[in-house]
């Protein structure tokens, strides 16, 4: 065995890689379970790819056969129901895990210098994931699949001058139809592998800047411990908890995230009473509908997703540790999270009366949070420094401020 490894090592840095990325890779010992969600996301990606490959063996991307082929999988393929429910629940699990992963980053300020690129690769991953989920949702060819795809592709009409051409080009026709289904199927199979590659880039960036940690300060060498075995086992325990929750849904509530209308085959002649996207798009959908003008709504929705990338610059506080030592940022974080949940509720219901107004107010709060952050964060910095901070945190903040002022 050792001989084989030595043979490989001369030709490929296997031992070096294992040491550098796992057994010697220094990880802050104070990382909480909130830091385990990145690993969970990677695991769910693998679940989705594996189950997806098996589904593709039995699924038929043809508008006349797609709906029936899903029922064929559910009823006739051995354990087809299990593979399909793992995949359909996996999509929701993926978003739940990723949103938690992002919330942790926002709460602890993990996007701050020097982790901007790490954060941006994550933002790119989110966009790829959203595109993949959106295209995958068309494949069952149910009513909600069809009309969801119709509504979302329609948004590209807002493009100046070429709007109509772009919509036709995306659909492969004047309406969502067989060509749309086949191209979405093809891309839905491709994108997960792009995500896989982007995850590798995300990890390279992570291993360059290393994990942030809840204390906000750079830990002394003695407080960093090797990733393996300490965090492999911690992540595996977290995975166990995740799997229990995930599989409870798969086995006992598998229709939880499947809209009833999607059990009706797509019918281009009949619009469902209410077109509702999947839960993970609801807050953004609510923002889209809260702006009266189509182009304005589309721009607002796009910005609401992309604005996270600007966080390293919008947050101008030099106090580290994220929300932990920053009462105002913490309050803003919680208001923002609540705001997103309210937007999600609004997005799931027809926009009328009070609910329409609630959606508009929450959309305003959503964007105000980001717009006010540059000013609030600077003011808060002065406030918390005057009020007093743990010495190590204060020293880091003062050092950063001095560096910044030296540059001016």
């Amino acid at each position, binding site marked *: 065995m050792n001989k084989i490894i030595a043979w490989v090592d001369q030709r490929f840095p296997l031992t070096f890689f294992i040491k550098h990325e796992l057994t010697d890779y220094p990880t802050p*010992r104070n990382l909480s379970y909130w830091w385990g969600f990145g690993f969970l996301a990677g695991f769910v990606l693998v679940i989705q790819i594996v189950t997806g490959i098996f589904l593709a063996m039995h699924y038929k991307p043809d508008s006349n056969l797609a709906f*029936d082929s899903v*029922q064929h999988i*559910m*009823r006739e393929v051995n354990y087809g*129901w*299990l593979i399909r*429910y793992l995949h359909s629940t996996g999509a929701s699990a993926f978003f739940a895990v990723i949103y938690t992963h992002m919330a942790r980053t926002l709460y602890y300020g993990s996007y701050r210098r020097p982790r901007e690129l790490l954060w941006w690769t994550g933002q790119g991953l989110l966009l790829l994931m959203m595109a993949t989920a959106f295209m995958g949702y068309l494949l069952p060819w149910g009513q909600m699949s069809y009309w969801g795809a119709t509504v979302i592709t329609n948004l590209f009409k807002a493009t100046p001058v070429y709007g109509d051409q772009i919509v036709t080009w995306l659909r492969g026709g004047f309406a969502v139809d067989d060509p749309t289904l086949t191209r979405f199927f093809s891309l839905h199979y491709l994108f997960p592998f792009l995500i896989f590659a982007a995850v590798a880039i995300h990890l390279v960036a992570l291993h360059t800047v290393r994990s942030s940690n809840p204390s906000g300060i750079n830990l002394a060498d003695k407080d960093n*411990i090797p990733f393996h*075995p*300490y965090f492999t*086992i*911690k992540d*595996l*325990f977290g995975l*166990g*908890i995740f*799997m*229990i929750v995930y*599989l*409870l849904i*798969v*086995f*006992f*509530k*598998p*229709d939880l995230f*499947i809209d*009833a*209308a999607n*059990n*009706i085959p797509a019918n281009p002649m009949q619009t469902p009473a209410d077109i509702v996207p999947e839960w993970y798009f609801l807050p953004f959908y609510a923002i889209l509908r809260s702006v009266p003008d189509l182009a304005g709504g589309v721009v607002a929705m796009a910005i609401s997703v992309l604005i996270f990338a600007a966080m390293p610059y919008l947050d101008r506080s030099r106090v580290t540790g994220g929300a932990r030592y920053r009462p105002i940022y913490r309050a803003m974080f919680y208001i923002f999270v609540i705001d997103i949940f309210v937007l999600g509720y609004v997005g799931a219901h027809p926009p009328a009366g009070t609910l329409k107004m609630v959606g508009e107010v929450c959309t305003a709060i959503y964007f105000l949070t980001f717009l006010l952050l540059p000013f609030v964060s600077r003011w808060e910095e002065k406030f918390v420094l005057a009020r007093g901070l743990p010495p190590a945190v204060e020293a880091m903040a003062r050092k950063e401020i001095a560096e910044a002022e030296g540059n001016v």
Partner: protein
Amino acid sequence: MSNNKLFGLIFCLMFSAGSAQADEAQLKRGAHVAVEVCNTCHSLKYLKYSDFLKLGFSKAEVDAMRGTKGMADPLISQMAPADELAMFSTVPPDLSLMAKARDGGANYIYAMITGFYTDAKGQTANHVFPGIKMPDVFMIAQADAAGRQGIEQKARDVSAFLEWASDPQAEERKTLGRYVIGYFVFLTVLLYFLKKKIWKRLD
């Protein structure tokens, strides 16, 4: 929350989940209603006659239900879609997934079947589905109290059957699920203690 409490909660969820089960006799009665009444106009195309064997029907009973149709044939409506279109001005929807395709599932189907009444103009209408094109097949709108009871029982039976038909693997899924969740709870407990043991090295 302590880990013991957490695991307790998970165990409770495990054994309470999906406990409501229609009994076999009810599903069989419902199957008869579906084949003898619903199937006249509605298809249940994702069901095959052989699927009835899973409900506990004997082969002879299924043979009687299927008539000249093959064991592996799907349950296609007795009426041709073109005739249906002429008669009802719509093609009645397939029922195999109906319990999943409406919010409320089996309860919706029950409420719809029993929801017929005679309106002020003396015409038959439906509380749940205004403008429905389906006739009041059990004639519940004209039934007296005793007749109503019988129809409600039939509606309950066929709703339970359609719920089964929309998800014939449900029973197998829940049985397998208990083992899988049990396995993962056990594994996770082991991982928890292993984690504690490994992290002790840092003390």
